[in-house]
C-alpha cells in the first residue's frame, strides 16, 4: 500500500526531500487528497498547500487533483516548468 513520491526544483529544496516511500493512509485515494495530506505535515510542507502553484504527475504523466492514487504509483510534485 505504498507509493513513491518525488519532489523537484524549488519544491525539493523547500521540503529538503527528493524522494520518499509513502504508505497511503485511509482516506487518501486521489492526487489532490495526497497533496492535502502532505501539506498538513508541518510548517515547510505548506509549500504544497492550496493556492500554491504546484503541479503533479502520476506515473510520469501530468495529473489532475481528481486522478486516483493506487499502490505502486509514482507520484511527483513540482513547480510550473521553465525549460526551453
Amino acid at each position, binding site marked *: 500500500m505504498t507509493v513513491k513520491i518525488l519532489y523537484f*526544483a524549488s519544491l525539493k529544496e523547500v521540503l529538503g526531500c527528493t524522494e520518499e516511500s509513502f504508505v497511503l493512509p485511509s482516506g487518501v485515494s486521489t492526487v489532490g487528497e495526497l497533496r492535502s495530506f502532505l501539506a498538513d505535515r508541518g510548517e515547510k510542507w505548506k509549500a504544497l498547500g492550496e493556492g500554491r502553484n504546484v503541479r503533479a*504527475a502520476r506515473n510520469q504523466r501530468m495529473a489532475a487533483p481528481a486522478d486516483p492514487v493506487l499502490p505502486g504509483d509514482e507520484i511527483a510534485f513540482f513547480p510550473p516548468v521553465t*525549460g526551453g
Partner: protein
Amino acid sequence: MTVSVQAEDFDVGAEIAALSAGRNEVGAVATFLGLVRDVSGGSSVGAMTLEHYPGMTEASLEEIVVQARARWSLYAVRVIHRFGRLEPGDRIVFVGVAGAHRGETFAACEFIMDYLKTRAPFWKLEETPEGARWVDARDSDDSAAARWEQGGRQA
C-alpha cells in the same frame, strides 16, 4: 531517434543536415535554437543549472512530437534538450522540423517549442550576483501554448 535529453552539447549543422538526408521530398526545414542568456529579469546570469525528471521528460517530449505529427504532415522531427550546468552562450534546446512546405514546418516548430515550455518537466536554477534562484514560469508561455488550443494557428 526523435527526442534526446542529454547533458552533452550537440552539433546544430549535423542535426539539420540529418533532417533531410536521403529525403529529397523535403523542401523546408524550420529550426529553433535556445541559448543561455547572460541576463534574466534584470540580473546578470553567470550560469544556470537545468533540472529534469528522467523518464517523464523524455515521454513528455515524445508526446508533444506525436501531437505535432498529428496536426501537420511532417517528414522528420528532432528535439534535443540539455540538462545540468550551462553557461551564457551555451545551447539549451534544439527543435528541427522537416516537411514539404514552409508553412507547416514553421507552425510545427513553434508548436513544439510552445508546448515544451509549458509541458516538459525542466526547471532552471540561475546563478546571479544576488545568489541562486529558481526561474518563475512566465504567463506569456502559458498564453503562447494556449493559442494552439483555440485553433487559431493551424497554418
